[in-house]
């Protein structure tokens, strides 16, 4: 603050000298003829020792103050490099909000990252401002513009002048990058964030269910990525679909066939009684659902039967299919909907039946099985193997996802910091020197004009 004021004093003095010199010449020029005026100007010495001494002195003072002051100001340009930026969206498809660049969370993170002392979020926020590098004109359609570059400016205040300005803006930029990546870019956590269950305490069939869930999660992730970049090839020459195919194959053979078959055929369970009870409960429960679905199915059929023949007459009407092509269709009546509903209920009943039969099979197998330590050991070994394989698939999927993200996001956000450059400072000093020289020269010339 004080430096800022001090810096302005030399400029003010030079400004005053310039005006005084010019006015003096103006008023005193009335006391001389034109010829005398020209003569005075011609006789002027442009290199005077006094002027040069003053010039060096003033410029030196200004240069030092300007250098100190320029250290208080620094700016950075944040560029969004991903494709959705041109739609004013974040990379996850949500709306982009520029003010998040200097939101409390980012500033807090910057303070934490740089271990900045004696400064609060509020104090630092007051020193920062953000605006689009280029902004459009909403009143003219031709000048609509979606901003993808934003200028962040930092101007140190008395609360923050003890901090290195360039360091502060670098920290803000870095913290925003982290914040953005954490919040808006592809999340690669998948199952990593979940705590793994203790397999030794779980029923074997529950472990199968768990593995199925995990592999499905990896598959979903891969299918989702394949939807975005089906032709993307990783460094290891794999595609999302090829990894998904591998995971799917593994799921079918290792989990559904090998592990499940081993557990089923040997009827192995940690607590047979409890597990059978649970399956029995599930069957009972499923049976209630089946009864409801069956009743609904029958009622749909009964309702179709109830339809009066006279009320269900249909006629052909010109219509069009999904691709916009015309064809002759028939009018839709309630029977159509009821038939679809009936099919749905029928499928549910079949599904309920299958579930019950599956459970009964497991119950029978467990009941009929004798204790087989070898089978248990084999199952445990297989579980361990599958678990590791799933971990590996997860890692591979995440790696491929990261590679794709790096490829499409092009580093997502780029930041360039513009500090106080030496060239800019020299320009200011040169301009000041020129102004000072002009002012001193005018003062010197003005003295040569007679007062009366």
């Amino acid at each position, binding site marked *: 603050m004080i430096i800022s004021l001090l810096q302005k004093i030399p400029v003010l003095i030079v400004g005053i000298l310039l005006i005084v010199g010019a006015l003096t010449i103006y008023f005193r020029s009335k006391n001389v003829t034109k010829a005398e005026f020209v003569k005075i100007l011609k006789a002027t010495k442009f290199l005077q020792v006094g002027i040069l001494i003053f010039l060096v002195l003033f410029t030196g003072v200004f240069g030092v103050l300007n250098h100190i002051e320029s250290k208080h100001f620094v700016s950075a340009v944040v560029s969004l490099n991903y494709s959705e930026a041109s*739609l*004013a*969206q974040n*990379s*996850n498809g949500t*709306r982009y*909000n*520029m*003010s998040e660049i200097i939101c409390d969370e980012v500033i807090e993170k910057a303070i934490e990252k740089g271990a900045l002392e004696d400064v609060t979020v509020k104090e630092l926020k007051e020193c920062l401002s*953000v605006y689009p590098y280029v*902004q*459009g004109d*909403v*009143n003219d359609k031709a000048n*609509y513009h*979606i*901003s993808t570059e934003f200028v962040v400016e930092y101007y140190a205040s008395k609360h923050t002048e003890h901090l290195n300005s360039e360091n502060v803006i670098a920290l803000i930029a870095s913290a925003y990058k982290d914040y953005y990546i954490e*919040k*808006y870019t*592809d*999340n690669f*956590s998948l199952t990593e*964030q979940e705590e793994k269950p203790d397999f030794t305490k779980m*029923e074997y069939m529950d472990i199968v269910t*768990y593995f199925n*869930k995990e592999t*499905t999660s990896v598959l*979903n*992730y891969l*299918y*989702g990525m394949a*939807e*975005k970049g089906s032709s993307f090839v990783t460094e290891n020459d794999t595609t999302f679909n090829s990894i998904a195919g591998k995971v799917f194959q593994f799921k079918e053979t290792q989990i559904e066939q090998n592990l499940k078959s081993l557990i089923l055929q040997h009827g192995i369970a940690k607590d047979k009684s*409890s597990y059978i*009870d*649970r399956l029995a*409960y*599930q069957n*009972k*429960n499923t049976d*209630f659902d089946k*009864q*409801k679905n069956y*009743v*609904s199915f029958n*009622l*749909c059929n009964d*309702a179709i039967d*109830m*339809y*009066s023949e*006279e*009320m269900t*007459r249909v*006629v052909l*009407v*010109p219509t*069009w299919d999904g691709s916009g092509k015309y064809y002759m269709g028939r009018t839709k*009546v*309630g029977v159509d909907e009821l038939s679809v509903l009936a099919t749905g209920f029928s499928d549910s009943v079949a599904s309920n039946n299958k579930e019950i039969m599956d459970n009964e099979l497991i119950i029978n197998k467990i009941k009929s099985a004798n204790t087989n330590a070898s089978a248990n050991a084999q199952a445990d070994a297989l579980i361990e193997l599958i678990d590791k394989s799933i971990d590996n698939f997860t890692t591979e999927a995440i790696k491929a996802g990261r590679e794709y993200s790096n490829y499409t996001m092009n580093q997502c956000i780029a930041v360039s910091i513009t500090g106080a450059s030496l060239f800019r400072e020299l320009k200011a000093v040169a301009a000041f020197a020129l102004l000072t020289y002009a002012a001193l020269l005018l003062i010197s010339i003005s003295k040569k004009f007679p007062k009366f």
Partner: protein
Amino acid sequence: MNNFQVFRYLKKLLPIIVVLCVVATYAINFKLKSSNTYVASEVIHYNDPAAEQGVTPIGSKLDVNEIKSSAVMSKVVERMGLTGVYSVDSLISRVSITPLPDADKVAQKEAKLEEGEEYIYEPSTYIVSFTATNYEGSVFARTILDETLDVYFAEYSQKYVNVAPANNVIDNIESENYDYIELVELIDTGVDQTLSTLYQRMEQNPYYRATGTGVSFSDLADDFNYLRSVRLSSLFSKIYKYQITKNKTVLVSDYTTRIDNNSIQNTKEESIIKDTVGVINAYVEKMRESGNTNITYEYILDTVHDKNLLEVAPGDQTVTYDELIYSWRDHNESKEHLIIDTAYSHYIIDTFSACTGKCHNKECLSSSKTCTEIYNANYDKIKTEIDNEIKSLITDLSTLYNTTMKTNDEYNQYLGASYISVLSSASVKPSVNVGLYTIIAFFFLLILCCGGAIVLGRVNDIINYIFYTDHLTEFNNRAYFDKYLKSMEKKLLDDGTVYAMVDISNLIHINTEYNRQVGDDIIKIFTSFLKEAFGKTKADFIYNGNGSFVILIKDSDYITVEDILRIFSLRLNEREEYKNIRLEYKIGIAENFRENQTARMLLSEAIKNKKEFVSQII
């Protein structure tokens, strides 16, 4: 009168003009700055085709003013930490929404309406603006607008696109208020509803994955299914197996009441079914009688060819007969499901009332406790285990619900941004271009001041000529001299001031002897020679009347003026006109010194110093 000389007038008032212009320009600049406002604007477009029909994706009326509704703005205030600083209403009043209709579509609408055809078109592109004061600044305007649209996009999606949220029924559940079986049933129902919602989401966008949580709806459904099939079913089976209940009597009573209620509801459903069948039969009969059952292809309307028909008139077009049949089916389904629910209730009662066979004379049947509770020594331990398992399950489900809510929130924002796009991101402009207007004001003031100076200068010339100029000599007159003396009354004269007086002593005689015209001519000769003699000296001439001249000279001295007047006398002697007339005149000169530093004193001194002169007669 003086000639009209623009530069003379300007030169005289130049310093005042410059100072006035600078001060006034600064004042205008300050005023403009302080009253200036910043308007942040963004162009948004509703991508859904229904928006051009003025409706939302779910068919309700699209009201763009919801952008500045209190529901949205209150969230903005909260998000920006402005609670208590700004009132919601004050912010709402500063938001403006301007439609940008498509010119082609407006023309098409007008043409159709002229032809008497119905045509609905509503603009789907809008400029949304927020106005901030100069004190608040441009950043504030942009930030408020950004936050407002952020909130609105999410609200729009939640309200009109992603309609069904995933309800967390176990949030803050008071497990003490429920029996074990009731609690797990409640949890099961909640999970079932959540799964239905998640399946809907999966159908809409199967590959959507929230970046915040890292999960897709499919992942969430799998997690819910896993907890349901493993842990929830395990809890159910244990509760059944060990007959775990807080109060057997209450539990049995609850389910007995449920059976009774089902029975009553069934009776009601049967009655409705019977009535519905009656209505169906009567409806068919009446249709048959009225000939409405003999439908042929000729009844098909031509409008069915129109592709826009489906877009313009969506919604349920089910006919009455179908509705009657559906009603019959639905009521029958309710009735049958109630029967199954009654069977389920019987199953629960049987399970908790059943004797496990461990008691001797089936005492448990008449006891308020279950058989297991009476005879299983581990009952309390099992009960505690189940308590802990329920708590653990609720904790895990709550975490999962939170993840679901976060995923859903992000999905809302995602949908919001896909249903409403930004055509031009927020730009801020001051309402007034202060720089431009300041420059305009400066030049305007400059022109005004210069014009004023010219007018004033000229008016002054005219006034001087009318009131303060002697029309015979074109010198200042007596009134001017009086005014001058009055103005100088309390002032000291500058050094170098000399007063000279020239009086034509025999003017009356000349007027009498010759005529008044000759007298006037003589005065003119004096005027001319005085002007000539004083030349470029800083002299101010006054004709005081009656042949008396006063010359006020600045920056001069006695000797110089004496010399000038000597030249004047010589010039008078050498005159070409009226050579035959004897001219008697007096000249008095006085220079200001210590003793006569005021105008009056100097004038007295000049009068005192008058000396007689006579021009020669040839």
